[in-house]
């Protein structure tokens, strides 16, 4: 048993650090570290930089332009990026549809779509959830009717993240409404967002941000060649995509960064004339979340080690979503409380609208309440934490 990296892994980490020192644009990392969010253009800029270094797709196999790294290297890479304040990768192309195209796509689809994802030329978004469906995907209603070499798509998707930036969307649609089970009769389509009949309507969230949308399809023509795999087998590809969960879901790197930020702010804020971090109650709360994060990091490393040895992911993997998101929420709560009444001044929170100018109080205070509000989502999305507990109860504990 050994918690240390091998010399090769340490050398790799140094290589990543050096790259970040040289190539991560300061204006981007400052925004990330300050909690202001990342602008769409900055995401594209950063993806191009990674691509030029050959690191555009850390989790893809080499033959598709990926790095071919083992899970430990991917972890080191992601952790270093998070600590340095690099943008979290937009997952929809690289982490979701990319692997599906690699696994199930035709050679033509692979040639057509993968390089554009790698270079940051295409921005993908997701058409899974529908109004009234939530975590229960199999009940979806969006219809795709076959007309010759096209499908005609009608319906509505919701909780579509960054669809206002995207030029492609991958969708689950119902191709056979008479299938005996709801999971059957679903197909997986890739749709050009510029096709006539697509309307994207913003959903303002509680933090005032525009992050998600409703997407309406009205007689949208989609070529049959844009279907992944077989007709009516879409559920298989969807499950593959959903189960493609990775340790990065725990967000340990960014939580570590936030913990440091919390401590730094709590050293500057005063309570009864002493730094807040010296207040015994606040210090105990910070210590508790720091300890929880330490434990989660080891748990994540255990999952990683299992993956690296190609053993089946251990039970530890399923804990990462639950504890990782709880820690993210706790950190954002403590950060907000650390600035006291200066958490209250509050303006629109979308990255495109945010800047460093604080409306009142210390600069670091400006985005904290917005982040606290925004992070309510992490225990809801990606399968709510209640669903995660159901999964552990059934698949691991056998209840």
């Amino acid at each position, binding site marked *: 048993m050994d918690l240390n990296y091998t010399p090769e892994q340490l050398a790799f980490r140094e290589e990543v650090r050096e790259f970040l020192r040289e190539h991560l644009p300061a204006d981007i990392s400052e925004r990330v570290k300050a909690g202001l969010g990342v602008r769409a253009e900055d995401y594209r800029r950063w993806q191009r930089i990674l691509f030029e270094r050959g690191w555009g797709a850390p989790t893809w196999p080499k033959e598709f332009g990926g790095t071919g790294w083992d899970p430990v290297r991917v972890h080191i890479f992601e952790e270093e990026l998070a600590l340095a304040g690099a943008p979290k990768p937009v997952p929809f192309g690289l982490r979701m549809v990319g692997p599906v195209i690699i696994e199930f796509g035709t050679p033509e689809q692979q040639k057509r779509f993968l390089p554009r994802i790698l270079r940051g030329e295409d921005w993908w978004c997701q058409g899974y959830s529908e109004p009234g469906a*939530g975590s*229960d995907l199999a009940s979806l209603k969006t219809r795709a009717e076959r007309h010759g070499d096209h499908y005609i798509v009608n319906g509505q998707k919701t909780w579509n993240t960054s669809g206002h930036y995207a030029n492609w969307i991958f969708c689950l649609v119902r191709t056979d409404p008479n299938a005996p089970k709801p999971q059957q009769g679903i197909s997986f389509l890739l749709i050009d967002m510029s096709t006539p009949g697509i309307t994207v309507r913003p959903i303002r969230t509680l933090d005032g941000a525009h992050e998600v949308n409703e997407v309406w399809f009205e007689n949208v023509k989609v070529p049959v060649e844009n279907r992944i795999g077989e007709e009516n087998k879409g559920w298989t590809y969807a499950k593959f995509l959903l189960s493609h969960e990775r340790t990065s879901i725990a967000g340990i790197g960014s939580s570590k960064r936030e913990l440091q930020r919390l401590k730094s702010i709590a050293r500057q804020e005063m309570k009864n004339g002493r730094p807040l971090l010296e207040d015994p*109650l606040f210090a105990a709360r910070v210590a508790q979340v720091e300890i929880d994060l330490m434990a989660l990091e080891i748990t994540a490393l255990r999952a990683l080690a299992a993956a690296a040895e190609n053993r089946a992911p251990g039970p530890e993997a399923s804990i990462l979503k639950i504890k990782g998101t709880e820690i993210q929420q706790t950190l954002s709560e403590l950060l907000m409380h650390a600035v006291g*009444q200066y958490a209250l*001044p*509050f303006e629109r929170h979308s990255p495109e609208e945010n800047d460093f100018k604080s409306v*009142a109080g210390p600069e670091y205070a400006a985005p904290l*309440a917005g982040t606290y509000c925004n992070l309510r989502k992490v225990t809801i999305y990606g399968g709510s934490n209640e669903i995660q507990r159901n999964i552990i109860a059934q698949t691991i504990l056998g209840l």
Partner: protein
Amino acid sequence: MDFTFTDEQQLLADTVQRFVREHYSFETRREIAASEHGWSPALWQELANLGLTALNVPQEHGGLGAGPVETMLVMNAFGEALLLEPYLEAAVLAPALLQALGDAKVASELLPAIASGERIVIVAHQEPQTRGELNMVTTRAEKNGDGYVLQGKKSVIMHASAAHEFLLTARTSGKATDAAGVRVFRVPSDAAGLTINSYRTLDGRRAADLELDRVRLPSESLIGADSDTLAALETAHHISLSALCAEAVGIMKAVNAATIEYTKNRKQFGQPLSRFQVLQHRMVDMFIHAEQALSMSYLAAIKCQDPDINERRRALSAAKVVIGRAGRFIGQQAIQLHGGMGMTDELIVSHYFKRLTAIELTWGDTDFHLQQFAGLG
């Protein structure tokens, strides 16, 4: 021992609740929030017509001379409606402070105008490094000839931009945290040297930081010179904390009802969310939190004018702790149980959540009051 309300109190509660349900829909509120001032002077006048701005003003000054129980009932309804108007600040805190200071001349000048709704008076006390402590005042008032010159900063003063004038605290002597030396000054909102940096807040209201740069005031601006100003501030804050707790209780009740309703109608995996035992027990815990909060809001209302200062401090800090924790749990879980819908600006639940969050951060957060309570023995 009696937890019933008098007929008059019940009538008041019904009237206010009916008024906000009829005149303060979520849509109306959205329009008011988006308007220039972020609150509605017209609606304020309607509140005045109902006598609500007069509630906390004594009868001798044209008010109704009602007490914390009446205020509690009104705030319950305002909580449910998420009222944006400066009621807590201008119709509870300000008259309470004026009465506590006991400056008869100023009281007879200001209280009638507060009661009638004409004049918005805002207490400006909190400063950048305040976390709830009332004695933390660094703004200075230097004697200058016949008057005073004020220099300093006030932080996140709710509804400051609505004020005709401020009751603003400053030190005539002593260090930042000394009990003695704190005084209250009347400062017109258009005083030369006063800058009001106004902004929106998390809960959709307006607040401002005040910058005082050599603000010159005549000597009669210092009010309540014969009183223990800090004690008066504490008295006024206790009354206002009770009102704040009542607002939170009104919100919690509404949030819980909305959540139950939502989970009954929303289906997942073929059955309503409300049939899942885990969510049922979550809602039971939300309910228990709300009931405990209601109990403590009663205690706060009953004790907030108790002559025994220790008893008062214990009750108010305890109430703020229970209400802070309850509001946090209920707000967070309401969003969680509403799922994605809870994250949107469209449903009132996210607005309730944000107001509960703001309430927890107001006048000392949960940890602050927990420590205050522990310090009382």
